[in-house]
Every structure is written in structure tokens, then in C-alpha cells.
């Protein structure tokens, strides 16, 4: 069955860089998805990204991005816009590797047919495991963008009858981790 991958990218310990993983947790706690939809928090996979993207028919990435606007502004990117600027000399394997990953997947014939990246402008990237207020307030814009894209792909997602707890264990705003909640 056609697989749709919805992936959050970013480091949850560096302030607004965690907006991608946070959005995935919001989607998981509030919506049910029809069909083969996989939600995943990919962290900062760098050059490992192609391993996760290959095999999906459609990909929706949520990431922090330099949109040039105010914190919380979002911008949507399709494949062509990402490939517009070629990657340059790379020193380490961790730097953003989206352009290289897409190029590699294209070359191998494994690029997902549908691709959307939702980028949100962050405000604060210092070490810390919470989002800034503005970014947190604007997360519904990301959720809307994901749902619009799913509708376009003819994949249905509906609000859950009862919302599950938000699984953002790293977030100091969330209820304190209890012994019970610790993985065993």
C-alpha cells in the first residue's frame, strides 16, 4: 500500500529547532490516520536521511527553516525549490543534507513521488528543551499544512474522539516524567 511518511526533523534540545519532532507528537496525540501513514521523529539525521525517505510514495517533512520572516512564519517547499541551490563543500556528516539526500534518491530512482517540506522560522536556538512561545502558538499552522497536503494526496486524517497525552517527554512544560512513564 502507498506509504505516506510524515517526519519531524530537528534537535529537541535546542529550543525552536525541536519544532519538527514536537509537531509529530501533536499529530500523534490528536489525529487518526487512514491507510499506511507513518509518523516519525527523525531528529537530525544528516546524511542518514535517504535511508528513511526511500520506500515512501509521499513524504511530508516538518523542519525549522530560515524563512526570512518572523518566528512562527511557515513556508512550503517542493522538491524543485530545494534543489535550486546546489550543496557545497561538506565538512561533517551532520549538516543539513536535504539537498544531497534528494539528489541521491533521484539518481537512484528512489525519490518519493510526492514531496513537501513545511519549514517554520524559529526564534531561539539556544540549548533548552522547550519551544519559544511564538513557535508553540503557531504549531496549528503546521498541522493545517499537513492536513491540507494529506487531503491533496487523498489520505484522510480525522481528529481523535479523545485526545491522547502529548508525548513530548523532553519538554520542561509537559508534566514531569514519572517513574512509571520511564521506558523499561
Amino acid at each position, binding site marked *: 500500500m502507498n506509504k505516506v511518511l510524515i517526519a519531524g526533523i530537528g534537535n529537541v534540545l535546542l529550543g525552536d529547532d525541536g519544532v519538527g519532532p514536537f509537531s509529530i507528537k501533536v499529530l500523534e496525540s490528536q489525529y487518526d490516520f487512514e491507510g499506511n501513514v507513518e509518523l516519525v521523529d527523525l531528529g537530525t539525521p544528516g546524511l542518514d536521511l535517504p*535511508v528513511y525517505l526511500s520506500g515512501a510514495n509521499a513524504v511530508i517533512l516538518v523542519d525549522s527553516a530560515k524563512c526570512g520572516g518572523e518566528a512562527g512564519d511557515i513556508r512550503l517547499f517542493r522538491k524543485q525549490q530545494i534543489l535550486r541551490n546546489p550543496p557545497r563543500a561538506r565538512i561533517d556528516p551532520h549538516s543539513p543534507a536535504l539537498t544531497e539526500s534528494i539528489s541521491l534518491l533521484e539518481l537512484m530512482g528512489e525519490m518519493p513521488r510526492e514531496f513537501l517540506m513545511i519549514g517554520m522560522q524559529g526564534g531561539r536556538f539556544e540549548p533548552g528543551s522547550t519551544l519559544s512561545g511564538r513557535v508553540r502558538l503557531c504549531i496549528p499552522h503546521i498541522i493545517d499544512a499537513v492536513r491540507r497536503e494529506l487531503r491533496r494526496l487523498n489520505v484522510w486524517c480525522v481528529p481523535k474522539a479523545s485526545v491522547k497525552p502529548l508525548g513530548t517527554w523532553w519538554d520542561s512544560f509537559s508534566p514531569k516524567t514519572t517513574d512509571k512513564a520511564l521506558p523499561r
Partner: protein
Amino acid sequence: MTSRIKIDPISRIEGHLRIDAEVDGGRVSKAWASCTMWRGIENILIGRDPREAWLFAQRFCGVCTTVHALASVRAVEDALKLQIPPNAQYIRNIILIHHALHDHIVHFYHLSALDWIDVLQIPNADPAKTASLAQSLSSWTRNSPQEFKSAQDKVKALAASGQLGIFANGYWGHPAMHLPPEVSLLGFTHYLQALEFQRKSNQVVAILGGKTPHIQNMTVGGVGNAIDLDSLGTLTMDRLTMIRSLIDEVIPFVHQAYLPDVCAIAGMYPEWLDIGCGAKNYLAVPDLPSDGSASHFDLPGGVIFSGDLAGVKKFQSAADPDFRRAVTEDATHAWYKGGTLHPWKGQTVPEYTDFQENGKYTWVKAPRYGGRPMEVGPLANVLVGYAQGHPLTRKWTDLALGRISAVARRKVTVDDLQSTMGRYAARAVRSAMLADLAVKHCELLTDNILSGDVATHNPPQFPKGEVEGVGTHEAPRGTLSHWVVVKDAKLANYQAVVPTTWNASPRDSQGNVGPYEASLMRNPVADPERPLELLRTVHSFDPCMACACHTFDPDGREIARVKVL
């Protein structure tokens, strides 16, 4: 004439490596390695429950998630003197091995192969000649003329559509590139095949770890996997069989494609066996314990000073008393307060100045072992094992040296590995060893379960008062250590001394340069505007600076800027 080169991956918020080098008569005469972002992520852990530390620690870095998870639980277990069941060791080991294989394959093919392969030459290659060359080097089943033709066609199509620039992360047509087109095509074809084997290694991690890239099964005292050979949702015989068949698919790629490719390229660039020698002091910790009490290890550890292999000192345990004592971090030239401190007393208090080449110039502290700068990583791992006569290390190192010698038409010795190319060779040797050890640890796990032992976890007990611990792991980029102080069951201090901190370390209070800085000395630079040679040496270490933030920049014109001053 002296000129100055600055390679600075510019970006607003990313943490990155910046290299400054002075070039005199076409060779580097002075070098500085600087990390341009403050991390201090450890501070987030202070005051937390030690049992949840690994969840945060595995977010230090997006690529090496599992290694930080492991070092974290090992540190807490060390503080509590808590042994873990044999099954937990084996499950952890199988995860670590596959993480490392995945990581080493990515490093060679996707991060650095294009430093040596000139993609512009690929259309000129003869696929039939490539196939006969490849078949003379290895029995890899996917070395047919058709495979090479198909890879070449992909490059030709890309060139025809004017899109070859998407791979423009190398310096093609550079005078230091001199691989025959057929070898370039060989390496590039395996570059395309590599993804499939990364995926298989990653699947092993996902089966045992529950998820990737962030595994879910780690726990202080063992692993969270339930073992029941008959029940679904646990580690069953079916899953063990699936893991074994994935291992059996990955091994041939490592032994028959990756290692032969590295040997061929090393043999064709023999001058790089004489360039890029670093600190000449090497540190590796023992890893892959083969019993619950961690009394025996399949990867040996120890230290070598001044390149003297005969004088190797062996570590008997994962956190050897010598290691515990000898490690310090020196902040003289780093943007932190404090002088030289042991990690348990370590502080992460920023004190930023500008880049001052004689003062503070980086966010990386200078870890030292008994006051000496140490190189860590696969080269250290291989040299320390080789020097001790470790049979598995000798087997694969001697095989690689033989192959490199045959291509280079000169005798290449283990001492020649102390070089830029030696680091690539050592990483491939280590991968070949790990592929053998993947089978061993999968069998150890299966046999132990079949003998009736299904234990995977020993519950931790936290004492009142203060205890200290160190968790070590010989990670893909080298020795990783997490140092914890636990007070009344809460974290009172947490310091991670990561491999790149050792390698990218700045000068210390005695003026000793760090391993990157040492390795860049005497590096040739044919064209200061395109310092490919410096990238080759820095890439040979597999730097891991960003460990961090990576915000996508759609309008970024450049990721790295080279400035000749």
C-alpha cells in the same frame, strides 16, 4: 610567501568546524581547528533522574544517537556498580555493531569518496574494463559490466541535463585528483549500492531497538527487550532469524565492496600514506563485552604514545583505573571558564572572546590523557589492537596492507597507517572486523537464549549520598565517555567527552596542538582557493561537530566558505 586559508562553513546557527591554516611554500605551516557553536547541552541533564538521562543523551547528536544512549546507561551502571545480564550485553552489542557499520559505510561512500573520485571522469570510463578490474579485486557479485554501465548512464544523464552540479560537494578537476576513470566508476557504483546496505544495518537496529533513529530499548541495568521465543511482540526466534539473515546480507558488501574499494583507492593515492599523521598518541577503550560482567572484550583498548606500537599499554576494563585517572579537559584555549579539570569536576560555563589565534578560539575544550593530546577513532582502535597482537585486528589489517601494497607497488606497513589515507583504511578494517563480530554476537545471543536464560534487566538501586561513574564506548568516531555524578538519585553533574572533542581539540596550556591541527601540518595545498587536500585530511577523521542544530536554509548560497587571506 605565506598565505592564510580559512574554511568556514558559514551559517547563522549551525555548530561547525572552522579550519584556519597558514600555507608556506605550498604546505601548511600552522593550523587551528575551531568549533563555532556552543553546545553545553549537558546542562539540561543536571537535576534529572539518572534513569532518563539516556533519553536526552541520545539527542546530543542526530547521527550518533545510539552511542550516547549507551554511554549514558553505562555511566550510571558504573556509578551503581550494576552488572547487566549477558543477553543485554549481546543485544546492545548487535545494535552498536550495526550502527557502526551503517556509519562507516556512510562516511566512506557519502561523505568522503567524492574527495578522491572525480565524477567528471566517470563518463570516460569503460564499463567492461571496470568490471574486469573489479572482478580482479573482489568476488562481489554486483561487479558486472551491466551494473557499471547502468551507474555510468545515470551520471551521463545527469551531466546531459546540466544537473551534475547537485553533487558539487567536491573539487572536481582538481590537480590532486588522479584516479583512473574506471576506478572512479567502480567507487561510484558502490556509492549507489551502499544505500541498500545502510538500510539493512538500520533494520537490525530497528528490530532490536524498537525504532530508529532513536532506539527505545535502552535502560539502566540492561535492555527493555522481553525475550520469549514463542510470543509475538517480544524477541522471538523469528526475529533472531531475521536479524541473522540481514547480517548475512550486509557482510559481503563490507568484505567484498567497501574494504576492496578503500584498498584500491589507497593504493592509487600512495602519497596520502605519507601525509596527515596526527598527534601520534592513540586512545581506544575496550568494547563489545562478551559476557555479562564485561571481563572480556572483542575489541581491545589501550593507549599508544609517540607512535610507538611496541610500547602499547592495554586497558583491562571498559573504564580502566588509568583511564579514570588520566583524563582531563583543558579550557585554556576554549571559550569556557576554568583551567584544567577532571570531567567529574568539569564545568560548562561559557566565556566567549573573538577568534584569537594565541588565545581562546573554539567551543571545544582540550581533552588530554596524562596531559597528552590523543587521537581517537578507527585508526586508534586498529593500532591499539594490532600492537597487542589481537588476532582479528591482525587478520584484517594484514589483508588490507597486502592489497594496498599490491596496488601501490610498494611495501605498505602498519606504520604507514598513521596518515590521512591510513584513517580511511583503518575504518574499513574496523568494519570488516565488526562484520565478523556481528555474526559472533548474534550467535552468542541465540545460544544464551536457547540455554534457557531470558533475563535482560537488573533493576538499579540508588544509594543515598554521592556516587561517580563513567560510561565508555568505542563509537564509530572513537572513544566516547560520559561522566556522571549522582547525588541522592539525581544527576549532580554530567559531562560528555565526545570523540570529536579529542580530535578537534585546540592547543592546551602547554601549547600542544590537537590531533586535527597536528595532522594538517605539512599538508600540501596546490590551490589555496580550492583546498581539497585539507578537506581530505579533516574528513579522514569523520568530524562530528554539529552534534546539534541543523536548520534548513533554502536560500543559503554556500555551506562552506573558503577565504584566502
